[in-house]
């Protein structure tokens, strides 16, 4: 805490879309209450803070630092280590920092395949000299270094020790506000390795208000192909809703808007691997009494790996593609 009695907070944007930075503003006018009690000492998205400024802070200077995004290159790792040193409490903010998020789906490809798509084979690309990014360049004016691209998207906790995680893509505003209030009021739970806060311990289905008629799935379909019946479980209607394999806390927001749960709050409290948790759940939900029928239904699922691990591939057991 500073000489003026205010908390010092920071936020950093790593391998993510930027939605997390915006989600902090989603708390609305309450942000005015926040700045009454807290000074922002690092937030590159909102104001011009330099890395050198942070490096000049004494160790443990930042009371609470929110790191959003996964670790995809050497710069993000360097800043993660720097912020760990300079922060009393380091929070992995959002699905990417906690579970890899959408960028982690790139772990289903190698660097070579990603570079090929990004710099050569996509139809809109013209690159006759086959130029690819280099991390090192010798010029007449000196050597240039840019961050190295890592072979996989890592979670923040793969790189440094993390005190808390706030899951979600993005974390839901009310949960964020509750967490901030807890930090400001000094009511944070004892420091714990990557303890999940701002969420509950059940699954999204427990919060979902749609009626479960206990009907088994007789056909898989997708949201753009038909208009689902209101107030009835989407999974029972054949839409691959990730509710049974996703941690609760969001208040089943998407379900209230007739959109399936995509799984952004990550694996439920009693599992580490969201994809296999979903496979486990589907085992009891399909209307199949013969192997052929089971096979037929399973084939109707368009992209099981991409759907089941949409936000959490870095937290899966296998983590990469061979």
């Amino acid at each position, binding site marked *: 805490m500073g000489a003026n009695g205010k908390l010092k907070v920071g936020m950093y944007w790593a391998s993510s879309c930027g939605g997390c930075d915006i989600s902090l503003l989603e708390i609305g006018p309450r942000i005015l209450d926040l700045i009454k009690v807290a000074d922002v000492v690092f937030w590159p998205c909102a104001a011009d803070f330099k890395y050198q400024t942070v490096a000049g802070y004494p160790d443990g200077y930042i009371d609470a630092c929110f790191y959003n995004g996964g670790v995809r290159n050497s710069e993000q790792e360097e800043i993660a280590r720097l912020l760990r040193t300079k922060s009393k409490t380091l929070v992995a903010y959002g699905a990417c920092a906690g579970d890899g998020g959408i960028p982690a789906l790139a*772990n289903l490809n190698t660097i070579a395949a990603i570079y090929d798509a990004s710099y050569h084979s996509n139809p809109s690309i013209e690159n006759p000299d086959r130029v690819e990014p280099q991390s090192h360049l010798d010029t007449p004016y000196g050597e240039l270094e840019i961050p190295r691209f890592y072979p*996989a998207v*890592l979670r923040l906790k793969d790189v440094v020790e993390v005190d808390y995680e706030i899951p979600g893509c993005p974390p839901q505003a009310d949960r964020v506000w509750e967490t901030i209030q807890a930090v400001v009021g000094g009511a944070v739970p004892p420091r714990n390795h990557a303890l999940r806060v701002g969420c509950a311990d059940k699954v999204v289905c427990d919060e979902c208000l749609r009626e479960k008629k206990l009907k088994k799935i007789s056909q898989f379909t997708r949201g753009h192909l038909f208009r689902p019946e209101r107030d009835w479980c989407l999974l029972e209607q054949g839409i691959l809703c990730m509710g049974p394999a996703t941690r609760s806390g969001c208040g089943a927001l998407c379900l209230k808007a007739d959109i399936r749960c995509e799984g952004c709050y990550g694996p439920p409290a009693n599992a*580490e691997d969201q994809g*296999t948790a979903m*496979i486990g759940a589907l085992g*009891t939900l399909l209307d199949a009494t013969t192997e052929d029928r089971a096979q037929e239904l399973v084939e109707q699922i368009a992209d099981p790996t991409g759907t089941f691990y949409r936000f959490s591939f870095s937290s899966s057991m296998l983590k*990469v593609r061979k």
Partner: protein
Amino acid sequence: MAQTATHAQSPQASPAAWEPRIIGFLCYWCSYTGADNAGTARMQYLPNVDIIKVMCSGRIDPELITIAFANGADGVMVLGCHIGDCHYISGNHKTMVRMPLMRRMLADLGIEPARFRHEWVSAAEGEKFSKLVTEMTEQVRALGPLNWPGLMRDRGVGHGMDLKAWGE
């Protein structure tokens, strides 16, 4: 029962001495009894499957299969009662849905189909069990080591992560 395979050598240390290591999840009521049947009838089969007895194939959390691969298994075998024979009436109906999904997901991750096998083996099918084990062991041997821990290490994730290994 088959004698225990020796796994003293790690695949990296000595490729010539590498033996496939396969984890087999067998349901208590049918497939494990089927394996026992093979043993009491003194049928010969390869010793490469480490058997884990579970009460029902429907009790096998798919996460256990990925845990086996992530910890270095070269193959995983899931055996349960034939459909209609489940001691718990419908336990294997869940297996019947989960395993084809697992097969699709493992294929997406680049794990060869022969490394994952899901079959029904009744208490009387000791011969089927011994044939399955031998067949799968030979198929996995032909594919070579999977070594997922090594793959994760190379990409800097998971077990024994070492960022320096990327050539700093």
